[in-house]
């Protein structure tokens, strides 16, 4: 397998469809050894993650928010890219389950001396890693790690490609707020730098599988390739729209998710200026007024306030940004718990 950054690739084609939950079926188990993306996870399995997350939320509300479920399990967190919330969220989640946590920041590890990814993975496995949580700037890197690693690999974000735990915590947060706990027929607008967003790519899988009407919105330079993906999705019966009109995307939306402008991944020519972007595509109170009253405002963080989201919207009554962070711990506890079972089989 060769690793190429998605920058030069078209967005990934829709591979394995998420199957619908058979009515009245017993809850399924978790069969996956790795969590690399949500595209191979079935809808009943997503429901299992959501239910397990409910139980983890209850654990977090306890006077002692710690259970011994993963006692003796080594969770190694290997991040090749900067992160606060995802890395700390995984660490807190693993510790709440009584796992042993090893943190490796690539910048201060032997990676800085030129050690390859495969060698690093072999080394951490030799040092006892059983679940490897990994973030990498190259799309597909966790797939390469999974070929080598004897335990479970969890993708904590790879390049532009996927961020499965974020998509699952976003889904959980939306379901907690939407009446009936369902996204069926709900309009979800994803606004901003879709092109560089692994959050958007993973969210498209889960949200369309949940029956939501997904609208991707941004300057056409930041939507490149998604029209084709949208057509493929429509052929699968997924509701999926691509537009550069903020008004169309936000009109009567139930959820508005703003995405960070990823300056570090931005090659020249995609945007005239941040100021112009903020003026034309920033999520402001005026624009939000076009959405359904009380629509949820979400952001995967970290936020560039005043660019993709206005400070008063980010901190406003409709914002669930901090709740996303809290739910992230519970979702990651659920996933670590489920993966620990698959690992031992």
């Amino acid at each position, binding site marked *: 397998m060769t690793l190429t950054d998605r920058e030069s690739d078209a967005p990934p084609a829709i591979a394995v469809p998420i199957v619908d939950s058979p009515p009245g079926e017993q809850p399924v188990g978790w069969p996956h050894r790795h969590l690399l993306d949500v595209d191979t996870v079935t809808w009943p399995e997503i429901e299992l993650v959501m*239910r397990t997350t409910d*139980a983890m939320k209850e654990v977090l509300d306890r006077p002692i928010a710690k259970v011994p479920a993963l006692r003796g399990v080594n969770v190694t967190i290997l991040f090749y890219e900067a992160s606060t919330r995802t890395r700390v969220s995984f660490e807190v989640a693993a510790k709440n389950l009584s796992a042993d946590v090893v943190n490796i920041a690539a910048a201060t590890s032997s990676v800085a001396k030129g050690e390859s990814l495969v060698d690093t993975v072999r080394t951490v496995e030799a040092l006892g890693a059983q679940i490897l949580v990994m973030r990498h700037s190259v799309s597909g890197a966790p797939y390469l790690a999974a070929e080598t690693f004897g335990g479970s690999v969890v993708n904590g974000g790879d390049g532009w490609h996927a961020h499965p735990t974020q998509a699952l915590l976003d889904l959980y947060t939306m379901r907690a707020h939407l009446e009936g706990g369902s996204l069926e027929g709900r309009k979800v607008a994803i606004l901003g730098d879709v092109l560089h967003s692994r959050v958007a790519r993973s969210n498209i899988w889960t949200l369309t599988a949940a029956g939501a009407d997904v609208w991707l919105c941004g300057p056409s330079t930041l939507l490149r390739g998604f029209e084709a993906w949208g057509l493929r999705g429509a052929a699968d019966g997924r509701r999926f729209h691509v537009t550069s009109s903020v008004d169309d995307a936000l009109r009567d939306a139930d959820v508005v998710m703003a995405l960070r402008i990823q300056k570090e991944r931005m090659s020249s020519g995609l945007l005239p200026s941040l100021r112009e972007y903020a003026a034309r595509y920033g999520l402001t109170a005026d624009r939000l007024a076009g959405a359904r009253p009380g629509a949820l405002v979400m952001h995967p963080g970290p936020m560039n306030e005043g660019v993709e989201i206005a400070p008063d919207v980010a901190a406003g009554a409709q914002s669930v940004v901090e709740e996303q962070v809290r739910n992230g711990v519970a979702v990651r506890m659920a996933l670590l718990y*489920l993966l620990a079972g698959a690992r031992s089989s």
Partner: protein
Amino acid sequence: MSARHIMTAEEIRRATIRISHEIVEKQAGTSGLALVGIQRRGVPLARRIADAIAENEGSTVPVGALDITFYRDDLSLVAQQPVVKGTDLPFDLNGATVVLVDDVLYTGRTIRAAMDALVDFGRPQAIRLAVLVDRGHRELPIRADHVGKNVPTSREEVVRVHVAEIDGEDAVLIDRVVEAEPAAAPVG
């Protein structure tokens, strides 16, 4: 595989009422008493005992539900993680006399896990144990304070408790094992 009845609905009803009397007698009243059912079939049994206490004593005893999944000692042995059913303890455990309620007492490992879980929520004055069926074969030094029926079994047999709230009928059945128990079956 032929299942044999070892308790009928009527026998279960009488055993539940007797256990409710025993619990009150041992506590000399209902003050400070709380019932905690172990998921899954211990929960409806705990509610029934609480109902019987309410009928006989005229006082309400709080009932909680305890999921012991995260405290099991065999998580690394099962092929897939058991589905978590949730814990709900809507009362203060500190200083309370907690009666754990479960359907079958077998190895004692479920009860060990339940006690570990319980003490994470507070410090009860005492923990007691009520079970509908004690089938023997303990692997830990644990015994029940209140037993609906003692049933001598072999390890090759499976005891199944059916409760109307979950299974649509009340019955205790005994089976000779032909196939392996499902991974998510309770350990105790």
